[in-house]
């Protein structure tokens, strides 16, 4: 076991094969360190599974299982049922990408929630099938270029809109569903910790930028995820039993162009008449989401400026750092 860092567990440790600057590796590291090693992790097929279990090596330092692409939620249901039968309390956590959650895995996820399994399902959304080389998924935003929604003479990238999965999940009236992203670690931490206190099915949808697929500089993965929220394109919300109970207010609304410019997947929209139409469309989508969730008017404790502010000696790391774990376990 790797115990180089005395202040966190490194449940997802070093040596994995994620691309340099991977938002999903970052998000998964944050979530699994917040939950800790005393949990059972069930992964769907996808980038996270591939780059952490390359050829008989594992970057996981907790019980971890992968079956196939579509069934993570069902496998987790089985794990949770077994634990319940054996009277054990170990938390069960599913990790899947957007394809494994929105598309191929939605059916099993819906079943898991409907049956009320005590499982936290975490979706790391990099908005396309990245492991197979950037193909379109239902989570890919409107007008984005992927290899299966290519711009061409007759098209400006993806024709359809990004599937509003958080609303679909919330319609199951589950105890807790929230969206988060890597730029705002304190917000993500609060939501993971809140989710871990709740019994029953819970859902976390975490935007995880992908330098390979989004074609932005590897150093900008955090900056880009911040801009996604500050432009209103990716609202940070909390829904409990189907009702909106929390929203991250925008300190200021930034134009979507600021978010699109650094990303090659939107490059085809700049410099053509048809592209300009889609730019206006994306701005309209952002404005609509801001109005729908009241992102500029909500009187909440945090806003996009105060939430990620730093202080000397940090704002707290992880629930129980390793040295409190007894070593002979």
């Amino acid at each position, binding site marked *: 076991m790797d115990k180089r860092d005395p202040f966190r567990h490194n449940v997802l440790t070093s040596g994995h094969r994620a691309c340099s600057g991977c938002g999903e590796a970052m998000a998964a590291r944050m979530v699994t360190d917040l939950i800790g090693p005393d949990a059972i992790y069930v992964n769907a*097929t996808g980038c996270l*599974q*591939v780059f952490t279990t390359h050829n008989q090596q594992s970057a996981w330092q907790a019980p971890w299982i*992968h*079956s*196939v*692409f*579509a069934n993570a939620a069902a496998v987790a249901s089985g794990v949770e049922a077994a634990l319940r039968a054996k009277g054990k309390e170990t938390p069960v956590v599913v990790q899947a990408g957007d394809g494994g959650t*929105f*598309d*191929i895995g*939605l059916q099993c996820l819906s079943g898991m929630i409907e049956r009320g399994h005590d499982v936290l399902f975490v979706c790391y959304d990099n908005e396309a*099938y990245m*492991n*197979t*080389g950037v*193909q*379109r*998924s*239902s989570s890919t935003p409107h007008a984005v270029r992927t*290899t*299966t*929604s*290519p*711009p*061409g*003479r*007759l*098209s400006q990238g993806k024709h359809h809109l990004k599937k509003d999965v958080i609303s679909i999940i919330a319609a199951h009236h589950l105890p807790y569903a929230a969206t988060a992203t890597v730029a705002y670690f304190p917000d993500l931490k609060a939501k993971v910790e809140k989710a871990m206190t709740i019994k029953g099915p819970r859902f976390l949808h975490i935007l995880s930028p992908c330098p390979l697929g989004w074609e932005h500089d590897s150093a900008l993965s955090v900056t880009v995820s911040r801009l996604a929220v500050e432009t209103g394109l990716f609202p940070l919300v909390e829904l409990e039993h189907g009702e909106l109970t929390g929203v991250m207010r925008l300190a200021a609304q930034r134009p979507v162009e600021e978010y699109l410019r650094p990303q090659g997947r939107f490059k085809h929209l700049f410099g053509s008449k048809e592209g300009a139409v889609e730019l206006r469309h994306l701005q309209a989508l952002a404005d609509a989401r801001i109005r729908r969730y009241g992102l500029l008017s909500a009187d909440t404790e945090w806003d996009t400026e105060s939430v990620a502010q730093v202080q000397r000696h940090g704002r707290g790391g992880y629930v129980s750092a390793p040295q409190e774990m007894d070593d002979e376990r």
Partner: protein
Amino acid sequence: MKKLLEGSQAVAEAVRLCRPQVVAAYPITPQTHIIERLAQHVADGELAAEFINAESEFGAASIVLGAVAAGARAFTATASQGLLLMTEVLYNIAGMRLPVVMVCANRAVGAPINIFSDHQDSMALRDAGWIQIYVESNQEAADSLIQAYRIAEVCELPVMVCMDGFFLTHTFEPVDLPSQAMVDGYLPAFRFARTLDPTQPMTLGGGSEADNYQEFRVAQHHTMENAQTVIEAFDADFGEQFGRTYGGLVQDYRLAGADTVLLGLGSLMGAVRDVVDRLRDQGQAVGALRLRCFRPFPAQALIEQLRAAQRIIVLEKAFSAGAGGIVAIELRAALQQAGITTTVDSVIGGLGGRDLTPEVIEAIIRGAKPDEHEATCRFAPDHIAPDNINSGEASHG
């Protein structure tokens, strides 16, 4: 006009030439480049087809089922885990006798998960009722895809064109793509009687009871068996029009006077041909036989070609756990039925993308002593470095 094309590109161009009207796409390495290429053609107006991004392979197979049932020529491609996820729908398509054509970019099956090439996926679907054609090169893949539509639409049976992942899908090789006019000449427009059409409303896929269910299967089986003649005929016809044939069901290589014959399928046969040439140059009576059409199983054709052989080796990249080499077992049954007692040496190798190099193939042909516990079959050694071919022991590179 001959061009150097990646296998996936060659197949995508062949699909385009067959004028499909609905393409269902779901990404899975190593077939993704095929649907990516088709997506670009549709986006650029070079292919008038509905390009549907399915939410899973289960969805993709269901989409092409619906499309063909509604009277449109359709196409999809998948591999490994995706093919297995389609299983229920593939049996359904065959049972409904729908002329669906699909490419399977052969890839190992998890667990453990592995993206590289072997035949475990399509072999697992051998009983689904699909015609299965295994190709050796990108040229054959493109040509067989065109033949497949004609075979499917005449036999009213689904056809699966199996090409090795990476070894073919990602390899650039010379391919002669026929013109649209030539393909239109060979492959008539899509016609299929049993479609969903308000002008003659019919119920498809309805219920059946004990008194008539078996008859469905009997008909399906006879059509599959007769398909052998269709497959041979359409390959010969392709030869006349395009100048290239692939032996129909099986393709022999230097069998005349051969006492040892190696039977195999897919792209590994290229290296086998090179090894046969080298051993023949050394005066050894060795030949090869490529199994092109695995379903329907061409028992007669195999028996004719193998009757004279004293030693038969079957090299396969898949096997049935607890039973051994699938083709080997079926070949043994066919030979026994025909009263031929030649033993069949079943060798399994190349699993999970392992490279069957000429040196390994030569060691297999020379008949390295099978280990004791390998009664049913033996496994090929790992990579053998070129300089110690004679010693035959594997050096783990």
